[in-house]
């Protein structure tokens, strides 16, 4: 058997289609046993692996425009896997897999120093300030494929890696070693009622993500599709979540472009 080609799982979210409905957030919460508290209005301590932010062009009525932007973990590749959070973890509780391109996290290994949270430029990591508490009986819906986390550890979006594992199990049983695009999908991509989230292997030319984004390996995966962009592209985090928008103000805002700069023109 030949050496398998490394996969690079990534996502492209079409902001023209995204309606800001929040289904991805809840699909993620339901899939990944994310806890909830009585008051979740302080968004700094509200755990949402997937969070939908609202952007606005700030123009006065009636020229105002808004756009929603769902933000999972970007699974930054950084420079050869040195994503901002992975590099700083003193416990080796988080790691970047060169085989799948997924930034993983062992909750039981994490000791809660929150260095990774400080390092993450996308606020994609969350700290468990409290033990999770489900009202009596509600723990029945918990998903056994994802372990509930405890107080004092950091957690974040895993690209539903357990679904990859389960899909691989089935593949092994059927004597396959490769997955089709549809066999491994994240909960958010599956749920999105607008079909705005497309998930797959950026290295696989057959996958829709690759075809939509057209990542340029010579330039750190920067998209060749002019509508596509990444958040804080110029930071060099090399994220694997891409966005599509036909609106220029959205693309500008995504990387804090100055008024005299043009997005996509590089540094």
């Amino acid at each position: 058997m030949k050496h398998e080609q490394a996969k690079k799982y990534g996502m492209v979210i079409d902001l023209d289609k995204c309606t800001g409905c929040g289904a991805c957030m809840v699909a993620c919460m339901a899939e990944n046993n994310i806890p909830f508290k009585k008051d979740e209005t302080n968004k700094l301590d509200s755990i949402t692996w997937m969070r939908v932010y609202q952007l606005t062009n700030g123009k006065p009525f009636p020229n105002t425009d808004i756009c929603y932007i769902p933000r999972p973990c970007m699974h930054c590749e950084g420079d050869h896997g040195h994503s901002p959070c992975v590099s700083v973890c003193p416990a080796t509780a988080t790691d970047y897999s060169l085989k799948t391109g997924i930034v993983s996290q062992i909750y039981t290994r994490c000791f809660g120093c929150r260095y990774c949270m400080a390092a993450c430029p996308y606020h994609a990591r969350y700290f468990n300030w409290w033990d999770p508490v489900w009202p009596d009986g509600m723990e029945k819906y918990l998903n056994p494929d994802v372990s509930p986390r405890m107080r004092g550890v950091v957690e974040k979006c895993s690209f539903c890696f357990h679904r990859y594992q389960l899909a691989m199990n089935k593949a092994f049983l059927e004597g396959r070693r490769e997955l089709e695009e549809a066999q491994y999908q994240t909960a958010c991509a599956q749920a999105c009622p607008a079909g705005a989230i497309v998930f797959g292997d950026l290295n696989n030319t057959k996958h829709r993500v690759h075809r939509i984004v057209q990542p340029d390996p010579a330039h750190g995966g920067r998209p060749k599709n002019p509508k596509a962009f990444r958040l804080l592209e110029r930071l060099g985090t090399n994220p694997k979540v891409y966005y599509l928008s036909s609106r220029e103000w959205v693309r500008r805002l995504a990387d804090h472009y100055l008024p005299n700069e043009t997005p996509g023109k590089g540094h």
Partner: protein
Amino acid sequence: MSTSDEKVKANGKTEKETPPEQEVREKGNGSGGPILFFFLVGFIASLLVGWIVFPRLLYSKKKQPIDFNHALHVETVEEGCASCHFFREDGSFSGVPKLAKCMECHEEAQGEDPEELKFVSEYVEKGREVPWLIYSRQPNCVFFSHAAHVRLAGMDCVTCHGPVGESTRTKPYEENRITGISRNIWGKSIAGIKRNPWDRMKMDDCAECHAKEAAKGAADLERPIDGFFNNIIRIAFPESLLGRKSSAQTRNEACFVCHK
């Protein structure tokens, strides 16, 4: 402060009451005796506590609800372990069979064995699942793929689970009172010594085997490189095929391979 005062007093008293010669004799002659004795008492007692009392305190013992005879079943069924411990269609492993599986044969008692009769009357007839105690249950943070090990890597059950199929009785289930985890994970030997690969099921044991497999893989290019815990080789020979990192930090394909 008061303690040191008392000490001084006590010393003074001793000096007055015991003649100096005696003190010298005791010091020079017998001092090694009691000290060594007390050392040994402490030493042996703590060894006894550590090796014998501690494990008994640490683990609670529970009997399985039914004394199950694996050997008898293995003889009767056609596909060995997989007859009852099978893969489901979705690739997941069924583990300990559910009542429905048992009832395929035991809807009614097949013999006179009191354990079987108990099984039929207590569980089959009442439609209750048997609350089996699972010896090899890992903590909830562990992800383990039976499919990858059995189907992909072609391992047999014995390698990790031991010759369970030969047993005629179920051994008591011992549970760690602190962690709530089965004793089988740490292993029967409280020292953690293992003679057979199935004696322990800790993370190190996974790692040990994976390092070996990876080393084999390096020699044999036909074998898929699935090494997980092969740090040593990789660090020592970074340019070797194995030295190719599969993850940024641990070089072990990252945490999610074995953790959930």
